[in-house]
């Protein structure tokens, strides 16, 4: 079991924002879909640091990212 970040894509799309994608320490992980106008997480690459939650919730007060527990089958 480990934590990954998940973006509420519908909520994120209501903002014009790409901020979290600029602060993730991992490459090719927290991506931005221009068609959906939303950030999304490439989950197998996420290390669960929650820095993106700090950016979205603490700095921007937008609360679109949550940390969720996943299990490998």
């Amino acid at each position, binding site marked *: 079991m480990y934590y990954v970040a998940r973006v509420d894509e519908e909520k994120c799309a209501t903002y014009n924002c*790409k901020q979290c994608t600029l*602060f993730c320490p991992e*490459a090719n992980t927290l991506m931005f879909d221009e068609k959906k106008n939303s950030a999304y997480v490439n989950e197998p690459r996420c290390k669960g640091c929650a820095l993106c939650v*700090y*950016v979205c919730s603490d700095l921007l007060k937008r609360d679109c990212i949550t940390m969720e527990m996943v299990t490998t089958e």
Partner: protein
Amino acid sequence: MGLRYVQPAPGFKQYLPKDYVDLIDFGPFGKEVDASQLGQFKEILEEHPMCAGCWMAYFVRVFYASLPNPEDTIVLGTAGCARLALSQAAVPFIYGNYGDTNAVASGLTRALNLRFPDKQKDVVAIAGDGGLMDIGFSMTMHSWFRREKFTTIMVDNEVYGNTGGQESGMSPKGVQLKMAPKGKKFDKLPATELAKLAGCVYVVKIAPTNIKRLSKVIKRAILAARHFGPTFIHAYTSCNIEYSIPTEEVLKDAREREKKDFGFEEYMTDEVRAFFEEIEKKKKEVRA
């Protein structure tokens, strides 16, 4: 940027690994991308084993997205955490003995000038505080005294992170670390002052909190080194493991340190300033 060095021969693309194909189709090659578009193109940096939430890993990510010309760049690293990610990118990487980055980079820069006299090759040495200011100190200083034309970047986590928490010359006075339990007795070395005295033509101190500014100084350091002499960036890249910073607070810590003792400083010689002004002027003319 050209696509040639990642472009496979016709017919071979279908047999290549997905990450390689993604790099061809969605990578930065042949396009004008910059670090403020991270998350919207396939980065040349790949997966690596640096810790979750590591600000040094973040620095490496922004570094690779900021290279003015990655296909003609050679990166040198040494023992320490950064090389774990530096080596995982689509850019040639050289790994020597601990602390010898600036000696190897000096020879390499000269050799590249002889071998490719009509081509600009960018050489960048990136190492930790232990690598550059302790064990590699003499090589760092002599590359500067000799005015070798390459960029040196110190990713300063104020500790020997990779070996479990010994104090370095860059650890702040008084700090207690796992393997320095009595607390450090001496001040942090004045790295940027040493760089200026030793002849670096462009010197920056920065806490990575603003990606545009960080990316700009990385580009500037590399461009100035091409023409004028040694350049140096001193970046605060915390070690959340050895300094017990909760990972979600790593950016908050960098912002606090920026206010306290890592405020942005940018020094350049007059000729370097004139060179950048000329570039900015040309860019404005193109836009107009």
